[in-house]
């Protein structure tokens, strides 16, 4: 586990990971939406 000496270091690391996760989640949600609505009948 990384050791953080300052709040700045902690925030830089955690925010970095969070932004990467957010990008993955956005792509994942798009894929999930396609999976969910794939068999919807055209209204």
């Amino acid at each position: 586990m990384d050791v953080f000496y300052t709040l700045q270091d902690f925030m830089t690391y955690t925010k970095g990971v969070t932004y990467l996760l957010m990008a993955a989640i956005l792509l994942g949600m798009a894929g999930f939406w396609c999976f969910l609505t794939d068999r919807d009948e055209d209204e």
Partner: protein
Amino acid sequence: MSQEAAVAGKAPFTPDRSLFTRFNVIAGIIVIIGLVITILRFSGGLATVTNLDDNYPWGIWIGFDLMAGVALAAGGFVTSAAVYVFGMKRYHSAVRPAILTGFLGYALVVVALHYDVGRPWRLPYPFIMQQGTTSLLFEVAACVALYLTVLFVEFSSAPLEWLGLKKARNIVVRLTILLTIFGVVLSTLHQSSLGALFLIAPSKLHPLWYSGYLPVFFFISSIIAGLSMVIFESTLSHRYFAHKMDETHLREKEGVALGFGKAASLVLAGYFAIKVIGISVDNNWHLLGTCYGAWFLVELLGFVALPCFLYAVGVRDKNLTLIKWTSGLTVFGVALNRLNVCLIAFNWHLPSDEKYFPHWMEIGISVFVVTLGIIVFRFIVTRMPILYEHPDYKDGH
């Protein structure tokens, strides 16, 4: 079933049916035990019937009856917002049952709260004697009181139709959109504030459950609980009260299950995402390898990710059975989340001999309160136009 046959009479019970059905006997025993425990609680105090102490001032009466009860009663604002704010008229048949479930849910939350706070005559004191305007709990109390009033007014159109009071009924129906908007605002406030109550105790709540986003988590999970409870209640109503339903209800039930299941799947996916973000923001990944971490993963994967996937598969395949079972799983999962935050992950530092486990009488009161709700629900649904449209007002709402 014809429209006329679906209209219930005003008699309290049909004379040729025995009172001693299996449900009535079991419910009767639970009610009698509940009344005895009630007398013990109010005559002997909390210590007589509970295992509450200074470390755990809130037990299952708050953790389950209040926290889970409020979340599970969220179907009212979710359904009425979907129909009256977002214009999804295809779910109209689900509104009255959802409003009834919500009204009974919130009413029983207040009943359960009386057991915990004691001195029921002091319930209005926060409004008339001393307002705690710096307290989140005051805001919760105010919002719940107002929302219970909103739900009562929204629900009142059904008994007014049953009693034939057309003028009063028409006034209430004209207030629908206003009440719906007010209900959504109030629900957003108090659902999130229940989560915010724990922000003041970061050292007591386990870091995996504690987050600055607790209010958001509670609000989003209340929407999930509301959507799932509508499907769950609809399933049970179709099982036991199908003879009371008109053709509209029977025709729309599949659409309600599919539509609400789809919405629940999406919101669960979003909730899963924000829970993961919550771990990331606080850098708590290492805690997932602990015992509490394993329990957190059971909640997150088994009762959030799994229902999300099952709902999605059910909606894709139009598998109503899967959707119905998943709604039960989700309802259980939201209740589990509330119990985790309020009891299990609370005071996680304490040794096991100082941990809280509810007294059997506390469990008895919780079962009593839920049974009361089921009895009243059954009374209302078998007599009033909840599962059918009253023939005098067919296109009136």
